[in-house]
């Protein structure tokens, strides 16, 4: 419900900011847009933290969690505890970095310089949270380390994340060219891809681990449908993905290059 409200606030902020001209109106909606986007990134991260940490599933496959209890990592922890909040903060820093690199890539002048400065500063936050979160996750969810040591090829995924992090650091410094900005953005993409695939690899074969043990967890085996249904789904998935990919290629080509600067008083879209 909170995610839904935040999504609604993002939408109406863009819509409302240009309806009235006044010294407070547009900045107010810009602030709402900024806060709702930041909270959305944090809540998405906290949701991922809950999936990695595990939830109190019962034998029927259902669970209830309070939004928070005592913020401690314990059996009666709520949706928000210190671990899930940390994952939320890491998500916020990672996405703010990704967004700042995108703005640097798409703009010119003062905005581009400010975005680059934010990206350079933000990198340290991303790096510190990545190291801290990785160490804590290995203790919070032992399955991650067990999967990595059981199938060592899986270290490829954290390696992609580390390479992305190093790439961002390297391309954010030195000569300031469009090619380096593009490489920095793609490094950030590699970092996000590496982190998320590492989490998925670490949890396999579980889709939602239970705090009460493996017997209560939801896995790809006890939530599966028939092979026939999955084969039909795969055929339609391929068709759908071809259409979606074609659409994205068209859109990104259509809007390729730098965007023009504005005064900030125009429509928000």
């Amino acid at each position, binding site marked *: 419900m909170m995610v839904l409200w935040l999504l609604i606030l993002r939408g109406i902020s863009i819509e409302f900011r240009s309806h009235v001209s006044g010294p407070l109106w547009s*900045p107010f909606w810009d602030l709402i847009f*900024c806060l709702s986007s930041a909270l959305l990134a944090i809540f998405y991260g906290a949701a991922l933290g809950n999936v990695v940490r595990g939830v109190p599933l019962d034998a029927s496959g259902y669970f209830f969690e309070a939004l928070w209890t005592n913020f401690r990592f314990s059996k009666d922890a709520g949706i928000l505890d210190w671990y899930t909040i940390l994952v939320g903060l890491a998500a916020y820093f990672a*996405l703010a970095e990704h*967004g700042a690199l995108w703005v640097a890539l798409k703009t010119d002048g003062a905005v581009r310089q400010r975005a680059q400065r934010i990206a350079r500063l933000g990198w340290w936050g991303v790096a510190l949270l990545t190291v801290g979160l990785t160490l804590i996750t290995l203790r919070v969810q032992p399955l991650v380390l067990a999967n990595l040591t059981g199938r060592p090829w899986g270290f490829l995924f954290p390696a992609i994340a580390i390479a992305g992090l190093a790439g961002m650091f390297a391309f954010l410094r030195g000569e300031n060219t469009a090619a380096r900005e593009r490489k920095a953005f793609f490094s950030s993409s590699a970092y*996000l891809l590496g982190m998320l695939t590492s989490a998925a690899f670490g949890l396999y074969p579980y889709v939602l681990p239970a705090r009460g043990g493996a017997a209560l967890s939801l896995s790809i085996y006890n939530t*599966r449908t028939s092979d026939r249904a999955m084969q039909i789904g*795969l055929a339609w*998935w391929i068709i759908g993905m071809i259409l979606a990919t074609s659409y994205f290629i068209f859109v990104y080509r259509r809007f390729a290059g730098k965007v023009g600067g504005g005064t900030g008083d125009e429509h928000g879209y």
Partner: protein
Amino acid sequence: MAMPTVWFCLVAVMIAVYVLLDGFDLGRASVVSTYR
């Protein structure tokens, strides 16, 4: 590869790609006031 594993991989990749494509929008919006 078994079908449940195939779907696990597909869903993981879809979520990761969603984060890449929507994440920079959320990210730049969360620092938008800094740009003005």
